[in-house]
């Protein structure tokens, strides 16, 4: 099972990579929106864990570009307001997480996304 972690922040990327690796997933990393889009279009990922705010292309834009069949995308955002959360939800992700989030919640969502894809 392969998971793509897309976040411009190195700290976030590395911790998520280690957390997901520890849980037995094969983890790939993308440092910005363009890299994430390239990775998704190039390879198959069961789950994409992606930040909304990234330089260049943001997570919502990537999600819209991916087309069908879309992988299960879990968006993460640090935006505070409800309207911003609503905008992220309109892009039809599998789930939207508000940073910071409890790690078990992320792991649960990743597991259920894989479950749903099967």
């Amino acid at each position, binding site marked *: 099972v392969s998971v793509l972690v897309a976040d411009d922040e190195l700290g976030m990327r*590395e911790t998520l990579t280690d957390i997901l690796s*520890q849980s037995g997933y094969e983890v790939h990393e993308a440092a910005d929106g363009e890299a994430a889009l390239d990775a998704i279009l190039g390879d198959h990922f069961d789950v994409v864990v992606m930040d909304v705010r990234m330089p260049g292309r943001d997570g919502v834009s990537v999600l819209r570009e991916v087309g069908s069949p879309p992988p299960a995308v879990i968006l993460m955002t*640090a935006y505070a307001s409800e309207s911003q959360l609503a905008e992220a939800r309109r892009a039809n992700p599998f789930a939207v997480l*508000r940073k910071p989030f409890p790690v078990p919640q992320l792991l649960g969502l990743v597991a259920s996304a894989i479950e749903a894809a099967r």
Partner: protein
Amino acid sequence: MGIAGTREVGQMADVVSAARPTRRERTWRWLPAAILVVLLVAAIGVFVTVRQAVDDQNGRILRERTGEIGLLLKSAVGNIPATMSGLGVASRLGSDPAQAFLREAHIQPGLNPTQTVALVHRSGGRLVVQAVAGVPTLGTGDVLTGSRAGAVDRALAGRTASTSVLGRGRTRVIGFAVGPPTTAPNTAIYLQAPVDPAAAAHSPVTHARPFDELSVVLYASPRPEPSQLVLATAPTPLHGQVVRQTIAVGGRSWLLAAAAAGPLVGTFANAVPWVILGVGVVIAIISAGVLLLFQRRRDYALAVVDVRTRELAQSMAELEETQEKLVFQERLAAIGQMAAAVGHELRNPLAVLTNTLYLLRAGFSGVEAERLGRHVDRAEREVGAAVVIVESLLEFARAREPLDENVDLGDLVDEALSVAPPPEAVEVVREGLDAAVVRADHQQLRQVLLNLVTNAYQAMDGDGVLSVGARATPDGGLELTVSDTGSGMDAETAAQVFDAFFTRKAKGIGLGLAVTKRIVDAHGAAIAVDSAVGIGTTFALTFPPARVAEAVPT
């Protein structure tokens, strides 16, 4: 609006203060008094000069008149012997001189009834009265002595003679004597007349020219002895300019003194100096008064200006107050905006921290220990990032005056690097930081350094060289530079880095450099940025000489 408004108010304040120096003109206060004094002195000077000329003229006329009076008196006194000569001739011609004298005396028309006339004969060294006519103040057979005898003796020697004034009070008399050749040898005519100086004041003679213009006093002596007063048309002693003249009467020197009873040159000529003085004083007072009036008016105008200036200053103060309130409200709005931004920004480091803590708590069994160390390091850095953001927020909201304390830049850099440790691939180069001490607010300067250092970390994206250096400037100040080898900025971005809420980074609220700039400004220091895309960025912080506590060894 805020900044432009502040600048305008500042310019207005300059205009108002530039109008102040006109007040120095108030030192011309003494001018009216000076004008008054100068004009008064000039008027008095002209008055004295003209008065002198009038007095000179008066004196000249007085001397002329006195000379005329002297001649008149002399001729009047000279008539007395002529009157007496008839008696002398008569006494000589008759067989009995005494009878002839008396007969002649009774028919003599010029003889005054108040006078005494006597025929005196010298026999055996004695002067014996032989006959008396008129008032019987002498008797036949009387022997003349003293001044009378002296006068008769001089008459017998051939010269008309007079006595001094004899007696006292109402019985004062004066005598005249005529001798040969008018009379027979050793025979003299002696005339004695009462002296009443006061009578002269009522005499018609003294009311005619030239007496009428003068006060005249005549003494039968060369000195003004009261006992010898013969004639006075005014109370003695005389006042004002007095002319004295000696006239010879009967072998004696008489003193004639005269003073002007009124202005001799004419009333108008005499009044001219006073007119000049009066006009001068009036002109002086009017000039000074007009000048004073102008000064009062100007004072009033200045007072009005002062009042207006105060009102203007008050209006400006109110305007500034209003503006400060506006700025404060703007700042409150900005703080609200910022709180949202901070709320957002804190989420990222907290998310990383959360993940990191999860990994640590999970014991990290599947990952090598080296990687565990990196997670711990990262956790520290993210905490540092959160600290910087929170401190920026607090600093921006607080905006307090900087303290004045010694800050060792070397220690400060150590402190900043421990709060915000450099990523492991970032090399830190320090230069000239030993013994570089400035007078500054330690807490605020630490914030500045944290902002610059964390900015540098982010620009370098975890890999590069951070240089922190200090060096003396040519004018004795101190320059602290923080350089990175990061992504750099274009000129447009570099021009805006100090604006609040300006950021080109994917993360950050754009407050760090705004706070930095404000702290630096509050210290009277300067901050400049030099950046090139792809090469790096250098922030240079320049402290003025007054802020340098210890010289940097070069």
